């Protein structure tokens, strides 16, 4: 594989990580909107809507970044994935469209309480289904069930994503995003009682995430053998998986001892390592076993140009994004 393909593959990974850290908890907040309960039910909803309102559109820029990078630099993989996984991707798109629309209608419209509640419910449900489907797509790529021969998908439109393994990865993704959301919300809550609500939720969902992580690994053995053999055979995976588990435990310890500001960083790092571990287990493949990074290159001579263009774009985008977070997240604390 060429140097530039490698650089762009890593850039793509960075995009996925940034999406998981920003768009992930944004979707995860929908879970807590759905599961708001107890005496401070209304305050929980108010807090999470307030937390995502200024930045939810910016967070989803990273998904667009990943898609654009893929179809411009690795169009063969893009084509195979969008054909083989057409159904779950189309459903995820519907989820994204409905959550955005429902959020905007909910926030800006003049409604009776009943219609407002209804839009809030549409927002919650579509926010919760989207990570399930995105995770499902990610899981399906590693099953080895999607075969691509001479650039053509030969296994139809149900291969991979209909397996229990892919749905387990989806459930794991949902749990991880919900955990991130609860940890971020706990750190941002001004009211200690409200922070405690999110703290309990973060601890609970971190446990659920751990259970699904174990189920995913257990199920990979038979459902995603190629992925599983890379996971088990190389030293770095043990390092990455071990570090992920250590970070999950640190997050829980920090939450337990009421240090959510620090927990936010360990939890974000945990999610980063999850994506990294997945990327490493995919072993330079978009789809195991047929579509490797090298075979997915659209047109090799343009790769360095893409890399330079993306680096230039990042020079503009990253400071703007950090400034946005600073304005809406740090400034609130005075």
């Amino acid at each position, binding site marked *: 594989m060429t140097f530039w393909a490698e650089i762009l593959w890593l850039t793509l990974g960075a995009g996925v990580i940034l999406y998981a850290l920003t768009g992930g908890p944004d979707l995860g907040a929908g879970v807590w909107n759905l599961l708001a309960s107890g005496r401070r039910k209304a305050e929980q909803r108010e807090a999470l*809507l*307030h937390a995502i*309102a200024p930045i939810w559109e910016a967070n989803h820029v990273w998904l667009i970044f990943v898609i654009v990078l893929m179809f411009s630099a690795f169009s063969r993989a893009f084509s195979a994935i*969008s054909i083989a996984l*057409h159904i779950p991707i189309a459903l995820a798109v519907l989820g994204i469209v409905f959550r955005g629309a429902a959020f905007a*209608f909910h926030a*800006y*419209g*003049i409604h009776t309480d009943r219609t407002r509640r209804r839009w809030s419910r549409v927002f919650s449900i579509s926010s919760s289904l989207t990570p399930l489907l995105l995770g499902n797509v990610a899981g399906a790529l590693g099953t080895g069930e999607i075969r691509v021969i001479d650039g053509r998908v030969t296994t139809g*439109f149900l291969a991979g994503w209909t397996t229990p393994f892919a749905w387990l990865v989806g459930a794991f993704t949902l749990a991880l995003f919900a955990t991130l959301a609860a940890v971020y919300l706990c750190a941002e809550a001004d009211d200690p009682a409200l922070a405690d609500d999110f703290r309990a939720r973060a601890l609970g969902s971190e446990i659920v995430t751990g259970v699904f992580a174990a189920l995913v690994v257990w199920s990979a053995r038979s459902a995603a053998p190629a992925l599983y053999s890379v996971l088990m055979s190389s030293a770095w995976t043990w390092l990455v998986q071990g570090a992920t588990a250590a970070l999950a435990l640190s997050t829980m310890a920090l939450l337990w001892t009421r240090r959510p500001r620090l927990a936010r960083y360990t939890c974000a790092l945990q999610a980063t390592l999850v994506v990294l571990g997945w990327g490493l287990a995919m072993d330079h493949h978009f789809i195991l076993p047929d579509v490797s990074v090298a075979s997915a290159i659209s047109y090799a001579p343009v790769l360095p140009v893409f890399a330079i263009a993306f680096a230039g774009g990042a020079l503009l985008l990253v400071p703007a994004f950090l400034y946005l977070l600073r304005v809406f997240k740090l400034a609130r604390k005075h």
Partner: protein
Amino acid sequence: MVTEVGRQPWLIHGVLRVKDAVTPVPGLQVSFFTSVAVYLFLGSVVALLLYRHVVSVPIGTRPEADAARSARSVHAP
């Protein structure tokens, strides 16, 4: 309409035909009709919500009262 219809049957003129570029996924009409229905629905909701915003503003109120009201009603930017 002019660009889309005018370049038929090419997607990229002289390079790629639309019929060669389209996904082989069966039942594309389902995707098509679903998208059309979703956007018609969301479009009409937007129109309805904008209409409600317009009719909810009483005519002839003082500007300072308007400013105070909009400051109260806007939660999210």
